[in-house]
């Protein structure tokens, strides 16, 4: 049987890298078109008030997604999947960490999206089609069908499903999103929104943190799709523009809707603002597009750890555990937990991988060695200890600054919480992790034969 390269972890050959700039803009915009993106703005809107919310939503998202653009270069230049492109920095086995983070974040994401799909579709169908349309088990049908099964079968059918889907869904859903924004801005709610007195419960640092973490959450997925890019520049700008434009529009819309209704959950405010039908279309199409995109990356991550597994079986293995979250979803809690998880575990890790590629390797990776178990990227028993030492430093700093966000007193430090209000947590922890890694490599490079070899 012929093996399709895109169903394996092998590098994509240049002739198969055919995703141009527009395709990538649409792909990444499609990835970010989901109800949860509305919640980014909702999360800090009441704390900041209207104009600071709008200003920070624009500028913090531009800043945060710029990091995604920089990180997108590795996959695009060499046609490498993200989990493979992590090996030069962390080692052949050290890259498993990134794969595990991706797989477990995926369970949460797909569960969250499916759960929102179920709730929103039930609400919207009852409002627009009447109570008589409601039936026993309707939540399960909408949540499991729209959020899980359709994306799973699409990804089984072709990994490039997200590219095809996004060319249809993004223009439609992007148009709807702008319509929603204008409808809210021209409604009678706008007077209340303009006069809203900020509660001050959360500040600017919290808003920047939310936008940054949301963008960092995309890091594990970048290489799986940018490996199909026809050029590095297309991936760089396609990723930035696609993610940032939708990230900004959705954060502002969500923020304004929350100021208008007092609700954070889009499934609730959409009904209050009489946007049920449009929101239902956005929810279902957006969830299918995003879940397909997430699933394929999760499949590649799983196959990097268990390379002998069959592609279709792996797709089911990666998709189905999300069922747990569909029935156990206190939406805001799940959203908060995912953000915490991403900031702490993924932020420093991907900062190190970017620093390794940009500052230490100057953009040069040996592709053949990325697949050699005992090659130059083996380091110490498969792990680059310097990278993990740097990761630890970043995580400790994050816990000091942002541990209080978890709500656990054991992780709350008074000085850290005070410092958080000035510098947030994820950006400094990423900078420190990257700085410590570069310093360690510079100091120990000439004393360690393994390190010297890996940079040859």
């Amino acid at each position, binding site marked *: 049987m012929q093996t399709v390269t895109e169903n394996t972890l092998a590098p994509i050959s*240049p002739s198969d890298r055919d995703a141009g700039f527009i395709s990538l803009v649409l792909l990444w915009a499609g990835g970010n078109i989901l109800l949860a993106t509305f919640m980014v703005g909702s999360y800090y809107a009441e704390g900041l008030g209207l104009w600071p919310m709008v*200003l*920070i939503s624009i500028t913090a998202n531009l800043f945060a997604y710029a990091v995604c653009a920089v990180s997108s270069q590795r996959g695009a230049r060499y*046609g490498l999947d993200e989990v493979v492109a992590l090996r030069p920095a962390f080692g052949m086995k050290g890259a498993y960490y990134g794969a595990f983070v991706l797989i477990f974040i995926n369970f949460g994401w797909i569960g969250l999206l499916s759960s929102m799909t179920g709730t929103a579709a039930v609400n919207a169908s009852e409002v627009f089609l009447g109570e008589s349309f409601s039936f026993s088990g309707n939540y399960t049908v909408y949540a499991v069908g729209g959020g899980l099964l359709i994306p799973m079968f699409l990804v089984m059918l072709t990994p490039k499903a997200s590219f095809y889907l996004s060319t249809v869904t993004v223009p439609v859903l992007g148009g709807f999103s702008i319509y929603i924004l204008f409808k809210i801005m021209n409604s009678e709610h706008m007077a209340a929104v303009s006069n809203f007195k900020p509660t001050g419960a959360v500040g600017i640092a919290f808003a920047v943190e939310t936008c940054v973490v949301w963008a960092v959450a995309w890091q594990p997925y970048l290489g799986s799709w940018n490996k199909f890019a026809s050029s590095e520049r297309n991936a760089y700008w396609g990723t930035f523009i696609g993610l940032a434009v939708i990230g900004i529009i959705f954060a502002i819309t969500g923020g304004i809707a929350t100021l208008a209704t007092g609700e954070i959950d889009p499934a609730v405010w959409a009904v209050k603002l009489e946007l049920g039908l449009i929101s239902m279309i956005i929810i279902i199409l957006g969830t299918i597009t995003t879940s397909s995109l997430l699933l394929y990356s999760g499949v590649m991550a799983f196959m990097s750890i268990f390379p002998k597994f069959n592609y279709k079986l792996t797709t089911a293995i990666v998709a189905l555990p999300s069922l747990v979250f569909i029935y156990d979803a206190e939406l805001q809690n799940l959203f908060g937990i995912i953000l915490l998880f991403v900031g702490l575990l993924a932020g420093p890790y991907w900062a190190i991988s970017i620093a390794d590629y940009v500052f230490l390797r100057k953009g040069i990776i040996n592709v053949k060695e990325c697949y050699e178990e005992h090659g130059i990227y083996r380091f110490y028993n498969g792990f680059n200890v310097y990278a993990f030492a740097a990761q630890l430093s970043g995580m400790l700093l994050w816990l000091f600054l942002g541990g209080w966000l978890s709500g656990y007193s054991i992780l709350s430090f008074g000085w850290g919480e005070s410092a958080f209000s000035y510098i947030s947590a994820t950006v400094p922890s990423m900078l420190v992790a990257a700085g410590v890694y570069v310093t360690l490599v510079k100091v120990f490079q000439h004393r360690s034969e393994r390190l010297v070899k890996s940079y040859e």
Partner: protein
Amino acid sequence: MNQEVVEAGRVNKADHLILFFLSCIPLLVSLFVVCAD
């Protein structure tokens, strides 16, 4: 595994510079404006 690199359309310093001005400067300005307010 061949080392197959697409050299056309590589990201250069101008790209990084434009991205920097699009991302870091607006955030710094907005932080200044919001905090000063």
